[in-house]
C-alpha cells in the first residue's frame, strides 16, 4: 500500500534519513522503532509531505506521492497523528474534529464519523465544548487520533501516541490502535515504546541514526536478543 524507496532527507547540512526503504501492506500495523533522534518523525513528515526527500521515491496505492503538497495527501487517504498531538489548542474539541473532516463534503458521512469517534472516545463527547488546550494529555491524544479518524483514512500514520501518558492510558491507546486496525485501517506506527509497539504490530523496522538496521516480523524482533538489549531493557 505504502512504498518508501531509498529516501534521503536533510535538515540543511544534516543528513537525517539515509537511504531508508520500507513498505506497509494493506491491513497491517507496521512499526518503526528507534531511539531519540533516530529519524522516526522525519520519516513520517516526509511521507505526509511536510518535508521533502532530496532523493528516493514514495508511492501510495501505486501512485507516486513524494511530489505532492501535504494538504493533498489527506484526500488520497493518508492521515497523520503528529508527534506531540498538535491539537488546535484554542479551539473546542468539536471544532478540532470538524477540522479533521475538512476535506469531506458529504454531510452525512461527517455526522457518521462524529458518532464513530464519540463512541470510541466517550470522554471527547462529554467534553466536546471544551477548549482543546485545557484537556489532559491523554484526552488530547484521543482528540488527535479522533481528529485523524474523521477523514476515514486508509492509512494512519501515528507518531509516538504513547508519549507522556500514564501506563494505564498507554494500554488503552494501544488497544484503540488495534481496534482501528481491526476495523480496516492500515497503520504505520512510530514508537520509542518498542515493547508495546512490537506487541501489537505485524512487522517492524528498527532505525538507528537515520538508517534501517533491522527488519522483520514483530514477534521475531520481540524475541531477538539484540533488539531486547538495545530497546526493550
Amino acid at each position: 500500500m505504502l512504498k518508501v524507496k531509498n529516501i534521503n532527507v536533510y535538515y540543511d547540512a544534516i543528513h537525517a534519513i539515509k537511504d531508508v526503504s520500507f513498505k506497509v501492506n494493506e491491513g497491517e500495523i507496521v512499526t518503526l522503532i528507534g531511539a531519540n533522534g533516530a529519524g522516526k518523525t522525519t520519516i513520517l513528515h516526509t511521507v505526509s509531505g511536510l518535508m521533502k526527500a532530496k532523493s528516493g521515491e514514495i508511492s501510495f496505492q501505486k501512485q507516486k506521492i513524494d511530489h505532492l503538497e501535504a494538504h493533498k495527501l489527506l484526500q488520497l487517504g493518508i492521515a497523520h497523528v503528529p508527534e506531540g498531538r498538535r491539537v488546535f489548542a484554542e479551539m473546542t474539541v468539536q471544532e478540532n474534529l470538524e477540522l479533521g473532516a475538512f476535506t469531506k463534503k458529504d454531510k452525512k458521512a461527517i455526522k457518521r464519523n462524529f458518532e464513530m469517534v464519540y463512541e470510541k472516545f466517550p470522554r471527547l463527547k462529554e467534553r466536546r465544548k471544551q477548549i482543546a488546550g485545557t484537556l489532559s494529555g491523554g484526552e488530547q491524544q484521543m482528540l488527535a487520533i479522533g481528529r485523524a479518524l474523521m477523514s476515514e483514512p486508509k492509512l494512519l500514520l501515528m507518531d509516538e501516541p504513547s508519549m507522556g501518558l500514564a501506563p494505564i492510558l498507554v494500554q488503552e491507546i494501544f488497544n484503540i490502535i488495534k481496534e482501528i486496525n481491526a476495523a480496516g485501517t492500515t497503520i504505520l506506527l512510530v514508537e520509542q515504546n518498542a515493547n508495546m509497539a512490537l506487541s501489537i504490530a505485524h512487522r517492524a523496522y528498527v532505525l538507528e541514526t537515520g538508517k534501517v538496521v533491522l527488519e522483520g516480523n514483530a514477534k521475531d524482533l520481540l524475541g531477538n536478543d539484540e533488539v531486547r538489549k538495545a530497546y526493550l531493557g
Partner: protein
Amino acid sequence: MDVLAKFLQQLINGIHVGSIYALIALGYTMVYGIIKLINFAHGDIIMMGAYFTFVCIVTFNLPIGVALITPVILCLLSGILIERVAYKPLRNSPRLSALITAIGVSFLLENVFFKKFGQNPIPFPQIINPSPISLGPLQISRITFITVLISVLLMILLDLFIKKTKPGKAMRAVSEDPGAAQLMGINVNSTISLTFATGSALGAVGGILYSIAYPLIDPFMGVMPGLKAFVAAVLGGIGIIPGAMLGGFIMGIAESLTKGYISSQLADAVVFGILIVVLSLKPSGLLGKNVKEKV
C-alpha cells in the same frame, strides 16, 4: 448638562474614528496572526482605497455603488498580490527580512501614488450628506452614524465568518499551527491569501470611511491612521481579533477626549503614551494571553 453633552459629543467622535481604527487594525492583527508579519504596507492600502474611490467617482463618474465596491475589490486583489510577490518568497527567511520588505513595499506604493497624483492633497468627494441627526441634546453627524454602523456590521460579519465558516476555521487553524493545518488537508497558501484579502478589503473600507471623515487625500495619508491602527492592534493583543476591535475604539476615544479636553497637539502623544503604559503592565496586550496554555 452642557458638560455632559460635551463629553458625550467627544465620546461619539471618539467612537467614530475608533471604529475606523478598529477596521484597519483588523488587517494588521489577522496577518500577524497567520504569518507573524507586521504588514507595514497595510497603511498604504488605506491610501489606495481612498485614491481608487476618488478615481472611480471623479474621473470615471461611476454610479456610487460601483464606485464604492470597485476600490474594495481592487485593494483586496492588491493585498493578495503583495503577499504573493513580496512576502511569500520570504516565508522561511528570518522575520526581519520580511519586515524590511514590508517597509519597502510601503515606500514603493507611496511613491507610485506620489508619482501619479502628486504630493498636494486633493479634496475627496462628498459621499455622505454631513447633515446631523439629533438625538436629544446631541448632534450626531450622518457621517458618524453611517461609519459606526458600517464598521460594527463588518466586525460582526467578520466574527461570524471566522467562527462559523469553513474558510474561517481554516484561518484559525493555520494561525495556530500551519503544519497541523496541512495535515487536515487545509491549503495554507490559499488560506494566507484569503487572510490578506479579508484584511485588505477591511482596510479599504477603513480608508474610504477615513477619507469621508477627513476629506483631503494624499499619497502619505495612510501612514498616521495605519500607525495608530497598528498601535491599536498591539494594545488589544496582536493576533487577537477582538483585541484589535477593542484597541481601535480605545485609541479613537482617547484621542478624541484628549483633543476635546487637553489639546489637539497632545492627542498623538497621549495615544502612544497609553500604549507604553499598557504594554509595560501587560506586554501581550489587553486581551493577550500572558502564559501559553499547556499543550
